[in-house]
């Protein structure tokens, strides 16, 4: 009789377990790429604000990575800070504090790079986010979107951005854009086509107040 009861309890527990969906379905993974090339380094303060805002919005089990875009961005070395938040809110808060500290340290010793390898950064981000099985995957590109590759770097590789949102933040206008705005428009169109043809969705947010829409948890 007791054995029967125990088995019934076990079956019930199994059913409950089957009903429960893992944390991945409701979590989000954000990979933020920060352009550190040329004059765009000056915009790093804004990037810091975005990071802080994102940190404030993240929930338990969410993943957040911040990486730099420089001459060769397809590398783990470019990752400035990364974390997957703990299940417990108190522990998650500690992780957020530590993350912020890492970013603050990085900002103080940031170095400007000569080239801008955005594609490499996106490839690295896709690679990372695919590995982490988050329900919602987002790549933030904090850049003016002007890619300048060093000679010899091959980046005409198709991305695999299925189920990934790519959000370009703070896409500043260059001096040449002011002379001929078509350059800016072409740049933006090029990236949106690249992303959408790879199965991803494309969005531009220049007013950082609109970032809230992206980070609202499902």
């Amino acid at each position, binding site marked *: 009789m007791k054995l029967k009861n125990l088995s019934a309890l076990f079956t019930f527990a199994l059913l*409950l377990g089957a*009903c*429960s*969906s*893992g*944390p991945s*379905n*409701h*979590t989000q993974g954000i990979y933020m790429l920060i352009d550190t090339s040329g004059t765009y380094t000056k915009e790093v303060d804004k990037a810091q604000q975005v990071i*802080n*805002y994102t*940190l*404030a919005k993240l*929930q*338990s*089990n*969410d993943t957040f990575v911040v990486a730099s875009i420089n001459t060769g961005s397809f590398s783990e070395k470019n990752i400035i800070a990364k974390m997957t938040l703990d*299940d*417990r*809110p*108190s522990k*998650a*808060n500690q992780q*957020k*504090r530590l993350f*912020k500290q890492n970013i603050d340290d990085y900002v103080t010793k940031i170095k400007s790079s000569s080239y801008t390898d955005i594609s490499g950064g996106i490839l690295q981000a896709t690679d990372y986010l695919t590995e982490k099985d988050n329900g919602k995957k987002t790549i933030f590109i904090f850049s003016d979107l002007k890619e300048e590759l060093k000679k010899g770097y091959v980046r005409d590789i198709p991305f695999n951005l299925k189920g990934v949102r790519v959000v370009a933040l703070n896409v500043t206008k260059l001096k040449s854009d002011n002379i001929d705005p078509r350059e800016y428009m072409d740049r933006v169109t090029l990236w949106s086509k690249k992303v959408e043809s790879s199965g991803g969705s494309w969005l531009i947010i220049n007013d950082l107040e609109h970032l809230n829409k992206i980070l609202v948890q499902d």
Partner: protein
Amino acid sequence: MSLPPSMILIEGLPGLSLIIWFIIFSIGLYMMRTASHQAISAGSRMLYRIFRLTSRSIIQTKDRVKVRNKEVLIANAKEANEHMIEREFDRIENAVKKDLASYPALQHKISETITTIDEEYQKSAEIPPAPPGWVAAIEPIASIKSEGDPMVGNILTSIQNGLVKGQDKALAQYRQSSKKRHDILKRIAPKWRVVQKGLSEVDSRVKSILDRSKSIDRHMEDYENLVRAKDKGQHALSSSSLTQFFIAGFVLIIAIGGAMINFNLIARPMQEMVGGSNYMMGFKVSDIAALVIILVEISMGLFLMESLRITRLFPVIGALNDKIRFRMVIVSFVFLLLLASIEAGLAYMRELLSQDDAALMSSLTSSVTARVESSAAWITTASQMGMGFVLPFALTFIAIPLESFIHSFRTVFGVVVVAFLHFLAFLSRFTGSFILGFGKLLINLYDLVIFLPLWVESLIQGKKLSHIMPVLAKDKKEK
């Protein structure tokens, strides 16, 4: 609007084609007139009968539901009345037990006092000592006149003195005896008061039992009315159920508000225990856990109320013997106390988490960490903890309105079902009558459409009649 090409009979004259078609259709319809009329009439009558039958069956169902409602209502009222009578008997039993326990002592005291009074009274009735008997013997001697004889005078004086002394002594003795009797009577007075007090105590106890018996009489009368199934009583019961339903519903809504506050107090800190990102059937596990805790508290409250025999939702608990029931009261109360303590702890943790969140937000939004220490922060913490501790106990009392709600819901639901069935029966009857009328209207409309052949028919019939009528008149005349 134009005719489709296939229907145009004469090229270029669609109007004429339309008229021809109309005539063809009219003739066709005229030819089918009788059959169509019969079909429409039979169809509408059939539907009318079906709807009438449906209506009748709904009314029968309604009557059955009504009877059932009546039974439920009476059963509920009977149960409530029995409950009341039982309570009254319990009270009488307690009163009798309490009073009769002290009654022998009281009776003993009263009879003892009465015996003492009797004895005292006997004592008080003692006859005072009579004056000495020689007084009567001496009196004739004392009345002899001395007539100047000094010796006789001396004897008489001494006799008189002796007599006076004797009288004084007797008087003194009499006074002393009277004083003694008065003292005895004085001692009796407080004892009388004791007897009076004892008797009034008996009187008040008997009176309280009599009052209770009057209350029982009243309940019994109600009960008898119910058994006799008097309509007046049933109407009163029905309206009382409705009132109970709304009052209990209102209190339950308030209780749900309390439960929601309780939920918000513990849902966030629950994330610390079961994790903040696990989902079950689309809901956060931490939320489910918080809800389960509240539901367990409510269940414990129900058991507590049931064990205390305040509510009667579970007859099994009510039927338990007093010893087990008492144990159940203690167990459910202890569980409730533990859960309330856990909630108070969680509420405290919630406050800590909120402070931590606020500090983090502050550090994220400004470069300098601003730390504002509020001296009144402890009030929030204490309030949250207090609410966390008190709310589970407050939720215990949900059991009372819940019981009323469930009992009155049966009646109210029955009344609603009866009203609905009544409406359905009316609708069915109405539809049946409408279809019958519509059938008649359809027959008339049919005739309206074929007015042309009908007109021709009436013309022909008119001619026939004008031929026949003189012949008929002639026949009549001849006859």
